[in-house]
């Protein structure tokens, strides 16, 4: 078998046991890796009892998977999954960095982590295998200290084991922050100081397992390709396509912070009460000229280097460091909170990363809280202070309370949707109408009311990953940015920013063949493989539990906010149309082989070889 290291490390933190697991060639060929394989593994192991599995209990399984193209396709990523503490389904959450390459070079395609360690631990993955090591000394520490301490420790250890053989390069590190240790559902699995796998809430899953970090250092080559000569040629063609993406390379998604608000009216402003603004103080030029100290920053093998490094060098937020901020963080920790100054935005991002939150999720929750304050539903007594739009100090304070689970922060740490339910009960009001979420997850910063952004009415309601803007359901299921295509990238596992041009997407089938030797075509993918993964994810989402169960159709809807007309801007008055959503949704369900309620049909599941999924769905949903 080519393109794979061939084995996965399976770690049971409860008993400290580490063993190796292999998947048969047929399974790998059907699910590739990353998101696809995680869905398969999670369902096989937990499907029967899915509704009873507590995502934050020891029975949940955390998967950290690469894919056959990781390291080969320009721009490498890792895909993290498990039962999501936010959606209660399966979310494939990706993060860029060198860890996936280091892991594959150490001879593993992924880690399967179960149980719960008694005391805080970290894993060290090397060519010699996986070691479980004490992490008490870094428990409670933020990103900078965690990274610094573990790095020094690992370098000393490696040097001690083979003195004088080399100047050791850093292992790659995945880690969590204090908020994730306290199992806040709005936390990320982070890497370096500034990137994270945020969607899904897997920081909390690591926290629940007492797993502070995973370090990877592999010395070997990437797993052998089936036809390296051919692979090499395709890699160069893809690199050259990406080298031409000048604006993406220069500004990354940071260019969108102003654009999506002023031109497209699709940016969250004050908890989505508006989606339009014309604040030129928030233009990409201000970021570029004032805070970006590194204009091109990328991870392993990346031709686009669309990341940027921001440092605030003067003023009250001096010393704040974060990456970009990218569009999502500009929006959620900027406009969504009424913050329109780059330095303040960078500060909030820096704090978010230091504490280990996901920027989108925590920004969504902070905005929700601020709207409740604006409406007098949350008061100064509830919070302990006042919380006005644009008040960076207030948001700073609330974010820290969430990380500590102090006061109202304890409820908000559960994420917007769960907080809406709990606070709603306390206040005797329906607060879910202010929660801009989908299946328990804060929605990506791309609105649909103006209809000018790329996402469509069905994008969030029909996505198997909840409100994930990087995995939107699309009416045209074969579209380049449709969920079915994204499943390919997330299973492959590589960065889809490097495959946005159609010419690159056309090359992917050839690269898969050159690396694995398998003939997978667009047809096999869209008509079979992607549908299989999609169906498993949808099944897990529909079963849900234990704290919440999503009702088909009723919960496959847009957030209430989006049925309210846009209050200002050139597209003032536009709102989502329920009829249109219903029609699109019906057609979408049909196209992916689900019934009118969005339940994968028996015939579809049987065709895909998913009899067990069919059985579970029928017995679970049969009486509803």
């Amino acid at each position, binding site marked *: 078998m080519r393109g794979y290291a061939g084995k996965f490390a399976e770690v049971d933190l409860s008993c400290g046991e580490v063993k190796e697991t292999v998947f048969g060639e047929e399974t790998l060929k059907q699910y590739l890796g990353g998101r696809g394989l995680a869905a398969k593994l999670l369902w096989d192991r937990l499907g029967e009892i899915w509704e009873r599995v507590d995502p934050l209990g020891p029975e949940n399984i955390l998967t950290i998977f690469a894919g056959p193209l990781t*390291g080969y396709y320009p721009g490498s990523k890792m895909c993290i999954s498990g039962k999501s503490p936010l959606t209660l389904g399966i979310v494939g959450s990706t993060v860029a960095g060198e860890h996936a390459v280091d892991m594959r070079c150490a001879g593993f395609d992924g880690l399967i982590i179960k149980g719960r360690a008694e005391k805080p631990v970290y894993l060290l993955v090397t060519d010699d295998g996986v070691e479980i090591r004490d992490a008490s000394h870094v428990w409670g520490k933020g990103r900078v200290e965690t990274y610094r301490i573990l790095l020094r420790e690992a370098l000393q250890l490696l040097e001690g084991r083979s003195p004088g053989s080399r100047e050791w390069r850093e292992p790659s590190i995945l880690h969590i922050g204090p908020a994730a240790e306290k199992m806040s559902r709005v936390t990320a699995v982070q890497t370096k100081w500034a990137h994270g796998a945020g969607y899904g809430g897997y920081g909390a899953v690591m926290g629940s397992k007492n797993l502070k970090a995973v370090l990877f250092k592999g010395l070997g080559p990437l797993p052998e390709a089936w036809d390296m000569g051919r692979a090499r040629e395709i890699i160069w063609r893809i690199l050259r396509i990406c080298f031409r993406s000048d604006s993406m390379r220069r500004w990354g998604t940071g260019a969108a912070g102003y654009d999506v608000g002023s031109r497209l009216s699709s940016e969250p402003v004050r908890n989505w009460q508006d989606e339009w603004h014309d604040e030129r103080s928030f233009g990409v030029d201000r970021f570029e000229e004032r805070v970006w100290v590194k204009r091109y920053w990328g991870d392993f093998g990346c031709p686009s280097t669309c990341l940027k490094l921001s440092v605030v060098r003067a003023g009250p937020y001096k010393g704040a460091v974060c990456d970009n901020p990218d569009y999502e963080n500009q929006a959620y920790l900027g406009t969504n909170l009424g913050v329109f100054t780059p330095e303040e935005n960078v500060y909030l991002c820096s704090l978010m990363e230091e504490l280990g939150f996901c920027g989108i999720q925590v920004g969504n929750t902070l905005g929700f809280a601020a709207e409740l304050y604006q409406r007098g539903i949350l008061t100064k007594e509830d919070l302990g202070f006042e919380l006005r739009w644009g008040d960076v100090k207030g948001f700073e304070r609330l974010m820290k309370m969430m990380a500590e689970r102090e006061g109202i922060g304890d409820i908000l740490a559960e994420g917007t949707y769960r907080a809406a339910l709990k606070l709603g009960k306390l206040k005797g009001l329906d607060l879910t109408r202010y929660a801009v979420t989908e299946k328990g997850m804060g929605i990506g910063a791309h609105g649909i009311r103006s209809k000018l952004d790329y996402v469509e009415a069905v994008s969030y309601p029909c996505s198997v990953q909840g409100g994930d803007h990087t995995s939107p359901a699309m009416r045209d299921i074969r579209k380049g940015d449709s969920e079915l295509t994204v499943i390919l990238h997330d299973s492959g596992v590589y960065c889809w920013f490097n495959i946005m041009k159609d010419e690159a997407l056309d090359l992917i089938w050839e690269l898969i063949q050159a690396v694995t030797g398998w003939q997978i075509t667009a047809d096999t993918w869209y008509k079979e493989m992607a549908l299989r993964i999609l169906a498993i994810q949808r099944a897990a989402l529909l079963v849900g539990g234990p704290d919440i169960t999503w009702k088909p159709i009723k919960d496959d809807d847009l957030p209430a906010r989006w049925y309210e007309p846009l209050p200002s801007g050139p597209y003032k008055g536009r709102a989502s149309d329920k009829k249109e959503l219903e029609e699109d949704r019906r057609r979408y369900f049909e196209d992916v082989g689900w019934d009118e309620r969005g339940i994968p049909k028996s015939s579809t599941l049987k065709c895909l070889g998913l009899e067990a999924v069919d059985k579970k769905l029928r017995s679970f949903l049969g009486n509803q």
Partner: protein
Amino acid sequence: MSAVEPIWIARDLPKCSGCRLCEVACSLHHEGRIWPEASRVRVFMRVPGAEFPHLCTQCHDYPCVKSCPVGALSVDKRTSAVIVDRDSCNSCGACIQACPGRVPFLHPGDKKATICDLCGGDPQCVKVCTEGGWNVLRVVEREESHSYKLYARRPDEITMDLVTIIFGEHGERMAR
């Protein structure tokens, strides 16, 4: 570029994006595979954001060559690169210790000393870094009047300089 003249690779470290495509190009050229730890140029990242490529600077006095007890290292007169005779190398690591930048390393495959050979005069790492537009690595003509050993520095030392450029006064705290 077909160099008949001795060449040198000049580096503009603060511009490095950390993309590591230089490693991809180098390992593809020398190993026929993507093999970051066998790449002759290796990108260090002691502090995120302060990435930089680390490779042989062809010191004018070649301490590595002099240190080798079995004479496995020599200098290519044409390019000025250090050439390793893999059959003779006994993996003792003397060259690694002798190098002021700790640049050589034992190849993770055969454990033989491994050092940039300037690709025989046509550096692959420079090509990709230039084509990608980062221009961190550039081929310049080597002048015998210059002391290239100045640039052979250990990753930790280089990091200290870079973090102050990139993060300002907070830099050193991050690199401790």
